[in-house]
């Protein structure tokens, strides 16, 4: 079997075997991902009807998308062999973890909440698990629970899907029928059909077993076990288990289904209610200091795969993560993350093999920089704010406006542009941040003036050709450049008009809204000013007006094409008094000659009554061929063009006000694999802050514990 191809999966290694089949690690050669491949033995007791039923059921289960459910990717039949392709989950089964003495109550509740959430999703879709047990619940190294094999037990029996098939550390002997029987609800033993409440009985058995290390109803024979389940009272769990948890287990294990919880969500809510009380009893001082992680169970997450395109959407009330395959047509939405917090900056960091999403969150409780290594399923939640002004500055952080990555050679270096205007740098991947004093102590700083959005350093541009050169843009301070890695800075505003100042061409103090650099021509920068569009071809030493014949030269964002240095995109608004699209026509303008002329891009965009505003970080590009252009509005609409702006489609509407938009490509190349997904794979992996990189490294997913 090793080396054979089933469907489009090449079998790599055997990882387990059950009574009716074998499980392999395999590699999906089309979607370029590791998978688990379960093959039913040819001599298994499956007639044609049972085979079809299994296929049908597995296909139904494949529709379940939930972070706590092991995803079924594909089912099929070849040469008389049934096979199921599913998510490869690496961890330990709950059967193994619980040992002989059981887990601490806090862990039981934490896992129980996730199992109940998984059941809730399946039940909502009309799918009953029918064989929930500790052997097919896997806990990953990150503490994430994965429930396996939804709906499959009905047709195949339990053995094929036993421990070794799902977990790489569960060699327990569960070959006898008791492995399933001990989790069966009384009504099933009475011959009644299984329904949702039968799963909740099994959940009760799982919780009991996880807490105590033993099963609630045992016996030497199937008859004894069945009798115990149907007739015997539940044996108490004992004093180490909190009364609240015991009450939940008791109600799950009520012999009459009508007396149990009626929905998995009720069990989840009950477990969550006691979860906080258990956490309080822990030793808090031991947890001081380091970042805590918040795992989000109740949200819908985008199920990101290698080769996907991502849109990171920051809004005034939270963040969203949208994913799509390389076709860029149908977008799956994850979130909202950080309910009620404004997310003005996001970034995707795939340096050194990671898949990290950064986000800043702002609320009345302060501003934090947070990250996720699992595409939003969990986020760091630092107890102490990591970006903080030193005491001698006398100022406090109000917001983080920009997150920029350092060079590929220094994957632990990042920069943040903040309000009040300042630059922070980390050299240890965000563990600690330092104020860049060379800029903060600049003699101009006391004379910078806040713009409408506050006094913010909102743009950071690194020169890919000179590791010591960097630009920042400040509203209202203008453009500043360093040639020595941040030690000293010079204002670079020659030629930029400050309409609101008595001296129209001051050395500094301009209200710059955005600057963008083309990575292939780092001497060229484009600039959208508070009134005025400019280009520099000499590293920002001099700027020339390029607003030629635009309906307005007032606007916020400006981006460059990922490959064509003469292409740039802007979205003008009427004026600083009326910051909405001109004449109610939502138009993107593109130049193909570095600003000598501009053309309106309107196909698919509303051209009547559309008084929209697109803010400075809400226009971006991807790096596909042809390039995708994306923008989000203050009214919560998100538009996309897959053909460099020729035609547009609305991806989503009804979001909170969009204040940040970033694209990313989730690297999917494996060693020796061929790119197969149309359109042509992107030339670069991310477009953050106008910086596009051409690195295409092979990635090994790492997770931050």
């Amino acid at each position, binding site marked *: 079997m090793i080396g054979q191809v089933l469907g489009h999966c090449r079998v790599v290694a055997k990882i387990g075997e059950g009574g009716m089949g074998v499980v392999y690690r395999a590699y999906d050669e089309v979607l370029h991902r590791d998978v688990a491949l379960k093959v039913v033995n040819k001599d298994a007791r499956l007639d044609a009807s049972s085979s079809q039923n299994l296929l049908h059921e597995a296909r139904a289960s494949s529709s379940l998308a939930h972070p706590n459910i092991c995803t079924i990717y594909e089912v099929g039949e070849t040469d008389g062999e049934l096979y199921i392709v599913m998510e490869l989950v690496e961890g330990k089964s709950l059967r193994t973890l619980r040992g002989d003495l059981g887990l601490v109550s806090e862990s039981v509740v934490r896992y129980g909440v996730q199992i109940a959430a998984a059941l809730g999703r399946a039940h909502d879709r009309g799918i009953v698990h029918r064989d929930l047990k500790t052997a097919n619940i896997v806990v990953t190294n990150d503490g994430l629970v994965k429930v396996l094999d939804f709906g499959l037990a009905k047709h195949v029996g339990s053995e094929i899907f036993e421990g070794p098939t799902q977990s790489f550390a569960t060699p327990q002997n569960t070959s006898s029928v008791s492995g399933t029987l001990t989790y069966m609800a009384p009504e099933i033993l009475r011959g009644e059909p299984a329904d949702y409440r039968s799963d909740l009985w099994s959940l009760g058995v799982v919780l009991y077993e996880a807490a105590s290390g033993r099963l609630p109803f045992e016996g030497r024979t199937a008859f004894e076990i069945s009798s115990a389940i149907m007739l015997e009272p539940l044996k108490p769990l004992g004093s180490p288990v909190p009364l609240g948890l015991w009450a939940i287990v008791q109600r799950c294990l009520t012999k009459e289904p009508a007396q149990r919880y009626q929905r998995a969500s009720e069990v989840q809510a009950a477990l969550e209610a006691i979860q*906080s009380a258990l*956490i309080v009893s822990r030793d808090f001082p031991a*947890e001081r200091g380091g970042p805590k992680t918040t795992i989000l169970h109740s949200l819908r997450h985008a199920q990101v795969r290698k080769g996907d395109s991502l849109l990171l959407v920051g809004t005034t009330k939270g963040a969203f993560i949208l994913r799509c395959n390389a076709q860029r047509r149908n977008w799956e939405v994850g979130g909202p993350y950080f309910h009620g917090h404004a997310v003005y900056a996001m970034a995707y960091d795939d340096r050194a093999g990671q898949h990290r999403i950064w986000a800043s969150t702002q609320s*009345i409780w*302060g501003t934090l920089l947070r990250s996720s290594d699992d595409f939003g399923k969990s986020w760091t939640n630092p*107890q102490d704010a990591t970006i903080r*002004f030193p005491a001698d500055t*006398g100022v406090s952080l109000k917001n983080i406006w920009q997150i920029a990555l350092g060079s590929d050679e220094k994957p632990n270096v990042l920069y943040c542009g903040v309000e009040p205007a300042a630059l922070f740098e980390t050299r240890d991947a965000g563990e600690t941040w330092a104020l860049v004093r060379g800029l903060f102590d600049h003699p101009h700083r006391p004379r910078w003036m806040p713009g409408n959005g506050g006094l913010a350093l909102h743009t950071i541009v690194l020169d890919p050709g000179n590791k010591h050169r960097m630009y920042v843009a400040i509203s209202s301070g203008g453009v500043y450049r360093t040639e020595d890695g941040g030690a000293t800075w010079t204002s670079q505003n020659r030629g930029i008009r400050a309409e609101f100042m008595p001296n129209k061409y001051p050395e500094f103090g301009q209200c710059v809204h955005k600057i963008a650099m083309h990575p292939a021509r780092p001497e060229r920068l484009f600039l959208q000013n508070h009134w005025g569009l400019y280009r520099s071809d000499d590293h920002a030493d001099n700027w020339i007006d390029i607003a030629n014949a635009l309906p307005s030269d007032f606007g916020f964002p400006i981006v460059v094409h990922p490959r064509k240095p003469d292409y740039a995109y802007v979205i003008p608004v009427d004026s600083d008094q009326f910051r909405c699209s001109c004449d109610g026509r939502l138009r993107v303008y593109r130049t193909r000659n570095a600003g000598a002329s501009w053309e309106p891009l309107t196909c698919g965009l509303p051209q009547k009554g559309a008084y929209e505003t697109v803010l400075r970080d809400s226009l971006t590009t991807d790096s596909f061929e042809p390039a995708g252009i994306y923008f989000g509005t203050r009214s919560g609409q998100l538009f996309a063009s897959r053909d460099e702006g020729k035609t547009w489609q609305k991806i989503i509407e009804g979001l909170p006000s969009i204040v940040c938009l970033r694209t990313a490509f989730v690297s999917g190349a494996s060693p020796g694999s061929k790119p197969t997904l149309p359109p042509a794979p992107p030339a670069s992996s991310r477009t953050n802050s106008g910086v596009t990189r051409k690195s295409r490294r092979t990635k090994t997913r790492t997770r931050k514990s």
Partner: protein
Amino acid sequence: MPVIFHIPGGLREYTGGQKQLVIERTPSTLADALHALWAIYPGLRDRILTEQGQVREHINIFIGDENVRYTGGLMTPIPSAAEISIVPAISGGTGVSDVTGFH
């Protein structure tokens, strides 16, 4: 006498979900009381104070019924058996129900 802190909904993720927290000693000032609070729940400090040690702009702290902004700020003395309420400004849009839901 111990003092009781009332914690708004937006901060309970840092207190394990607890609405009320009891400090089993008598601090002399609000600053002392808060210092004792962070010793147990360190995540609260940077949510309530800026890095310069000031109460954040849209947060009010009440001792009993008195807003400490008008009674001496962090140096406000703590009476015996005080109840201290941390209240997000209504305009902040967070925890409004908690303002009315105290006690």
